[in-house]
């Protein structure tokens, strides 16, 4: 099976499995105890935190482990906003965990402003600057679109927002950008950044929130005061170990140029076969959203699966909802959206596999077209 739905989740690296197993079998002690074995586990957590922090250009005391990026995003919207009476600006391309959190605040009377996307799927920068004012409490812009792979210029946006409204806090949902874009968080100049480990070869159930040093945030989950009082609940030590191991492994494997070349070749192949690539500028090398005319993505997905290829269609999180909010925001018609397949690569995706898979995807689409359904 050729797996090309890595934006949904990834296979766990062997090294991450080994790290988790070791933490489960040998270093299973509660990290919050005072005896030697417990303290050793606490040290392991801190080592993992430090390692991850270094890889992403942050201080280790800026990272708090959470259960997933959805939790991190919810945390920011529920506890990370200082100016309670201010407005909030998000982009139309946000993941549902940001979008729904914002909508929840809207239902409580908060002024939520949504910045539109341009036709390539990136955020319309000029509109953001129009929407943000002195009273903007939070700006949240997704780093890399989970639908199209488009990279938003977070650094530039942050710089401009600081000039426009210095008090505005800036959050970026970095699930598809974390590690992959190679950006340093300090360099991005933001206040909050959410990440999820299962997109880079670690298990599901562990994520983090970057909170810029000096920024006080109330905990979202209260209790035993773990994670410096910011996120209670006994730390998920096996998965934190696996997270760090996955970051290490991913970093070893990742080759940005190779991914970009592979992505370009895949895109070229699709385009030469009459397909349309959605979001074809400044794109992450890992995600390709392709509209295959007159072939419903769901059927393509099923046929391709039966031929040994797994691809996505839209975000898996929103898989049970009709339509696609983000692709609609780009201006795609319902008919086009129905035909959008999402191919997402991983650091270890072999070129031959990917190109074979693309052929199988197109064969599946042709099969559907020959039956005149789509």
């Amino acid at each position, binding site marked *: 099976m050729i797996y090309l739905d890595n934006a949904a989740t990834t296979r766990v690296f062997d090294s991450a499995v080994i790290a988790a197993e070791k933490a489960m079998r040998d270093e299973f002690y509660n990290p919050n105890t005072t005896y030697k074995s417990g303290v050793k586990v606490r040290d392991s957590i801190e080592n993992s935190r430090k390692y991850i922090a270094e890889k992403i250009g942050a201080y280790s005391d800026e990272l708090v482990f959470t259960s997933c990026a959805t939790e991190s995003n919810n945390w920011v919207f529920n506890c990370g906003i200082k100016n309670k009476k201010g407005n909030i600006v998000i982009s139309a391309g946000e993941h549902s965990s940001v979008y729904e959190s914002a909508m929840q605040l809207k239902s409580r009377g908060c002024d939520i402003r949504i910045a539109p996307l341009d036709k390539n799927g990136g955020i319309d920068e000029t509109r953001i600057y129009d929407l943000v004012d002195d009273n903007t409490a939070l700006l949240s812009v997704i780093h890399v679109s989970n639908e199209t792979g488009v990279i938003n210029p977070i650094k530039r946006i942050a710089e401009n927002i600081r000039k426009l409204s210095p008090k505005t806090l800036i959050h970026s949902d970095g699930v598809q950008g974390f590690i992959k874009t190679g950006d340093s968080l300090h360099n991005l100049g933001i206040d909050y950044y959410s990440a999820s480990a299962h997109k880079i070869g670690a298990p599901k159930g562990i994520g983090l929130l970057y909170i810029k040093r000096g920024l006080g945030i109330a905990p979202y989950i209260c209790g035993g005061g773990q994670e410096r009082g910011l996120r209670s609940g006994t730390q998920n030590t096996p998965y934190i170990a696996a997270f760090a191991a996955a970051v290490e492994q991913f970093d070893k494997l990742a080759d940005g140029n190779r991914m970009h070349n592979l992505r370009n070749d895949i895109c070229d192949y699709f385009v030469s076969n009459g397909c349309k690539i959605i979001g074809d500028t400044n794109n992450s090398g890992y995600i390709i959203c392709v509209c295959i005319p007159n072939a419903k993505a*769901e*059927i393509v997905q*099923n046929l391709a699966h039966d031929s040994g290829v797994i691809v996505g269609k839209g975000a898996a999180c929103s*898989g*049970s*909802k009709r339509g696609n909010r983000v692709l609609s925001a780009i201006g795609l018609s319902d008919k086009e959206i129905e035909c959008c397949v999402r191919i997402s690569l991983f650091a270890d995706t072999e070129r031959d596999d990917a190109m074979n898979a693309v052929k199988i995807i197109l064969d599946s689409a042709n099969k559907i077209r020959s*039956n*005149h*359904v789509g």
Partner: protein
Amino acid sequence: MSDNNVILIRFGELYLKGKNKNYFENMLKDNIRKKLKDIDCKLYFGRGRYVVKEYSAELETVIIEKLQQVFGIHSVSVARRCGYDFGEITALAVEMSPNNGTFRVSAHRSYKKYPMDSMQINRALGEKLLELKPKLSVDLHAPDYILHVDVREDGDVYLYDSTLRCAGGMPYGTSSNGLLLLSGGIDSPVAGYMLAKRGMSITALHFHSYPYTSEAAKDKAIQLARILENYCPNIRLMCVSLTEIQETIHKKCKPNYMITLVRRFMMRIAERVARNNGCGCIINGESLGQVASQTLESITVTNAVVSMPVFRPLIGMDKDEIITIAEKIGTFKTSIEPYEDCCTVFLPEFPLIKPTLEKVEEQESFIKNYADLIDKAIENIETVSISQTV
């Protein structure tokens, strides 16, 4: 909670039965036994009343929930038990009743040899309560609190103050077998529930069109069958692929006849499956005029291909009435997960609202391998296991 807590079970329509009452009662007892088989308790089946005894207090809610899923049970009450001694009855009544407000005692004496009759019990117990709880007063018409006293055979007296309505209907398994067409939408599980409530054993048939419909859509039908299993013990689910049939119709016939023709195929397949599986009828979730395929004309055309009875328990119900039941039985949330089902693929822009038999048969005549397609669909039928495995 005291060890003397019991659950009284009352059955509904069964009391209308004549000489075959035993058959229905035995089935009901059997269904109750099976429903509570994993729970440590004792069942006592008396005349007109069943009692669940000797269970641990924390299981009470679970037992009631389970009993509410057994058809044939009209209502249940959690009661406290004591013996015939009037002092004992009084002590329990004092313990259970509130200290102020209005009340009434409502006694029922099915053990006719008990020295006091119902009216005497009402009066004597009322008097005692008034004497011991001076802030209480009697209101026979609209009291805040009603204390029921049920004097039974075998030295049992039950006191209770509330009654929970249950599913009602007839014991499951007493009204033959029916084949439910289970689509995955809101209506069909409710239709199955309605017939099961009248005692019919249900076998479910799901049509899918993989790869045009997803695995998730089929899984949804399995989930729904699992929920129905709470009410329909041992429900079976069979899945039939309509893919080839739909592809053939798509190629050979006019697009706006798609749904009508598919539904005629479905009915033919359903009738054969029903006969092969000992089912005497087909059950579906049609509601008159809800969609194009559920107009009288469409139903006439689809019904024309089968000779066995087709039950449509929802035919006169509004969508919101159906949703209310779906929510009550727990299928609604699963039903609204919007995966495509086989009726939504190859969907024409303007389906026929008023097809005629003549024209439909003409379209069907373009499909030369009609019988083969049905044979093949039935041959490839897949029986899906409903029981949950860990």
